[in-house]
């Protein structure tokens, strides 16, 4: 047996497609809409969530037998908030530049439904190692959607990728802009992110009929 058993591997790979936190569990939509106007922001947010969710899942899992059920949501919230604040402070002290890029996302991590969703659905019932894998898997699934949405929004909205102009210069009218292409400013606004997520859900469910719910 390798490092990961078959079941463990499933914990990582399932959330990438068939049990994706955004498109299937419908968690974390708000942050996916808010910060995907840039590809770089999508990547940074994905890494931050991976860190907090991976660690938070382990902490909650270790505490699962002593958490009183009446106040479990508050306990979970406290764990996330404390983790996020500590991470933020450490970054501010030792990686100041990075902490400035992340500052926008810190608040969004605390309110990210994926975190609370996975604590409730998985970490409260499973051991630390499994919970850790579940956290990593779900944040990878989150990352996949964020990066796809960020890619299309930045490309069609600003004509750049990771800040580099790939379609030409819109003011000097070079590249694609020379033949009449215009940036679609609507792509930069949140409603369009919802439409892109909707298209991803549509494509995914067309390809895999098992995901379509019966009514």
């Amino acid at each position, binding site marked *: 047996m390798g490092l990961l058993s078959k079941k463990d591997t499933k914990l990582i790979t399932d959330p990438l497609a068939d049990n994706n936190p955004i498109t299937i569990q419908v968690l974390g939509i708000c942050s996916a809409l*808010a*910060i995907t*106007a*840039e590809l*770089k*922001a999508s990547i940074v947010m994905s890494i931050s969530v991976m860190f907090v969710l991976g660690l938070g899942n382990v902490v909650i899992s270790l505490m699962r*037998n*002593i*958490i*009183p*059920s*009446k*106040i479990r949501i*508050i*306990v979970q919230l*406290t764990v996330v908030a*404390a983790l996020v*604040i*500590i991470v933020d*402070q*450490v970054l*501010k*002290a*030792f990686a*100041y530049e990075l902490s400035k890029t992340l*500052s*926008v996302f810190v*608040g969004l991590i605390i309110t990210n439904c994926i975190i609370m969703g996975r604590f409730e659905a998985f970490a409260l019932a499973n051991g630390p190692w499994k919970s850790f894998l579940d956290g990593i898997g779900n944040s990878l699934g989150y990352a996949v959607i964020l990066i796809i949405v960020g890619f299309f*929004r*930045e490309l069609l*909205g*600003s004509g750049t990728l990771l*800040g580099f102009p790939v379609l030409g210069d819109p*003011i000097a009218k070079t590249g694609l802009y020379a033949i009449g292409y215009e940036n679609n*400013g609507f792509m*930069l*606004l949140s409603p369009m992110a919802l439409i892109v997520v909707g298209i991803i859900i549509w494509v995914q469910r067309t390809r895999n009929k098992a995901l379509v719910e019966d009514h």
Partner: protein
Amino acid sequence: MENRTDKNSYTIIFAIAMVIVVGALLAFTASSLSPKISENQRIEKQQNILYAMGVNDNDESSAIFVSTQDAPELFNKYISKQLVIKNGEVSEDDQAYLIDLKKDKAAAGGDPAKRNLPLFVGEKDGVTHYIIPIYGKGLWDAIWGYVSLDENMVIQGAYFDHKGETPGLGANIKQRYFMDDFIGEHVLDDSGTFKGVTVAKGNADPINENKTDNEVDAIAGATITGDGVTAMIKSDLKLYKPYFDNLKNN
């Protein structure tokens, strides 16, 4: 069978213990890291001020500060005077860059005469820069910046930053293409009265060739952040007008 964790007494004790543990943990982290953090913030302010006067490591398109190691040395080299203006009185203060504009504004309670206005005078390539820190609010949170003026109140450089504006939209005020648009803009109108610089939507001059129209092109989708930049330039730079009038007359 009732689980022991369901008892009210257990719940209360758990809650109290959790608050104490988490509180202690956070307090310990914050107090042990705070000297390092304030050191970082101090250097950042120096980098910002240097950036506004054109001392930076910019490449073709992105805005890059001088390195953190070099910042204190370059700051001492380029900034010849740090002044604080209070109620028309100008005094020198070599810690002026540490003045917290937000706290100072709040303490003055809307009365400009009570405010400590920091001003940095520096020289680069034979040109004198008067660098003014500004502070205001954007869409989500604070925005601030440093504007370098010449003695005629023409902008020679600008740096803007924000706490939590939307990435890809309002956050673009710290992009080079936006900040560079301010260079050469006049803060006064033709008759010499204070006008500020407006971040304008529907600007007919996207390449920003007309530098005396007191307008720069806005960022699409960032109207409120842009208005915030306009407002902080207007309100904060205006306070320095008497100083520049004085400078000219002498």
